[in-house]
């Protein structure tokens, strides 16, 4: 874990506990803020007003949504597996929260720096597949089952090019620790040296979040609501929460792996090394937050601009285009790196 300890007067608080707490709260809050942002931005794009009744500018809308979800009736369909039906929505929420542990939010601001952090992230993400699959299976509804299967197949397909794109980053960093990856980008962001990997990673992040243009999983016109057709009340709310947390995590990962994490571009040139630690901390966290906000905005922007693919196109893009492309990208970068060092 992070060995640093913050001393405020008589109190000595370990930094990892602070980052853990703040990280979890920001994860959960990000969902609420993103729901509001999504509805406002969607309204703007479609030339509507959007939610503006609850509180000033409709800012309390997410709170009202949560209250409404909590007060709704919880329906489990007949002949469905009751226990699985209840467990399934918890899985994506838990796996999403688990990723807080290894992400650096600023220089020295991380919870823990484990040796295989990148693999840990991939492992946690791969466990998230169970949530949608089981939700589809346990519901005893045709729409749910098809949605769940599509979701699982799509998520596992895009995990591979994602993993290869990350591997091409590892080639340049030489470490699987996210702290090292963030630190190594103080001069050159990985996007500048590995743009193809960045593009592949971004597409995969979009596909993993199961949103338009990759929302075959819940394509309303054919599958009603996909794997959460039979979910109501807070069980549905948790899938909703997980979806927006995944958008947030996707933005964080894009930022961390390719867009310099908490560094400004070419930060080594003009950021003094002996900067005040508090000032540096504030600068780092605000740069990181701004980048993440930008990518969240892109997620929403894309969702309301680009129409949905067909399922065969999604699979073709994943297996026949992105996967070979990412493997070749990896080989080219490895060769260049090996023979220039």
């Amino acid at each position, binding site marked *: 874990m992070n060995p640093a300890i913050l001393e405020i007067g008589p109190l000595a608080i370990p930094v990892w506990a602070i980052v853990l707490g703040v990280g979890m709260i920001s994860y959960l809050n990000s969902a609420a803020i993103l729901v509001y942002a999504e509805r406002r931005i969607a309204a703007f794009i479609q030339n509507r007003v959007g939610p503006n009744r609850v509180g000033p500018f409709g800012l309390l809308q997410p709170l009202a949504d949560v209250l409404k979800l909590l007060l709704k009736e919880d329906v489990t369909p007949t002949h469905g597996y009751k226990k699985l039906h209840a467990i399934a929505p918890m899985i994506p929420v838990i796996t999403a929260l688990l990723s807080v542990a290894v992400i650096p939010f600023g220089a020295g601001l991380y919870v823990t720096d484990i040796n*295989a952090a990148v693999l840990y992230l991939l492992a946690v993400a791969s466990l998230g597949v169970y949530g949608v699959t089981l939700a589809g299976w346990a519901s005893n509804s045709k729409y749910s089952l098809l949605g769940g299967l599509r979701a699982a197949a799509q998520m596992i397909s895009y995990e591979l090019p994602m993993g290869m794109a990350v591997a091409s980053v590892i080639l340049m960093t030489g470490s699987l620790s996210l702290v090292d990856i963030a630190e190594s980008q103080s001069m050159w962001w990985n996007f500048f040296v590995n743009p193809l990997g960045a593009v592949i990673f971004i597409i995969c992040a979009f596909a993993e979040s199961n949103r338009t243009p990759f929302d075959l999983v819940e394509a309303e016109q054919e599958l009603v609501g996909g794997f959460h057709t039979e979910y109501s009340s807070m069980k549905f709310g948790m899938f909703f929460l997980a979806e927006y947390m995944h958008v947030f995590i996707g933005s964080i990962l894009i930022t961390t792996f390719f867009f310099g994490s908490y560094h400004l571009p070419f930060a080594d040139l003009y950021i003094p090394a002996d900067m005040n630690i508090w000032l540096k901390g504030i600068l780092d966290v605000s740069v990181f937050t701004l980048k993440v906000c930008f990518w969240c905005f892109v997620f929403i922007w894309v969702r309301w601009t680009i129409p949905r693919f067909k399922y065969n196109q999604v699979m073709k893009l994943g297996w026949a285009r992105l996967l070979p492309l990412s493997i070749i990208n990896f080989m080219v970068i490895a060769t260049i790196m090996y023979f220039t060092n």
Partner: protein
Amino acid sequence: MIVYLFILLAVLAIGSALAMVINKNVVNSALFLVINMVSLAGIYLLLNAQFLAVIQILVYAGAIMVLFLFVIMLLNVEDEEKLFDKFRVKYFLAFILGAAVVGQIFYSIAGVTDMLPEISSNMAEIGTVEEAGDVLYTKYLLPFEMTAILLTAAVVGALMVAQYKIKKG
């Protein structure tokens, strides 16, 4: 602390394994196997094998069990029939064989005096990704290359099985 964690994880692993075997619903069985994999990963972690622990979750729980789940759903298996509806000689023989294996296991356990294996002091370094890479790509290079051929064979095999079904059916 580590001993208690080990006992917790070991009980979880054995319990989930038993639950997997006993459970009649196949999907539930598969999920218990996932829990079993995760608790095994925890045990690897207690042995300071960090890389192995993460790989255990990534490959077994994240990939292979997803395939299991797909196959179960693909076959659409109903709940298992009750096993012992009537007495048969082969069940009796199977029981005796099983009892012999369990006895063997208990006998071996009784011979072990230390409960946990000693963890050598440099184990913390050996379990990292870097060390795994160093050994895997120098000492075990040939098995590593063979893996590539094995995996390709698996791909082709899966393809052939699928096509065979279609041609016959």
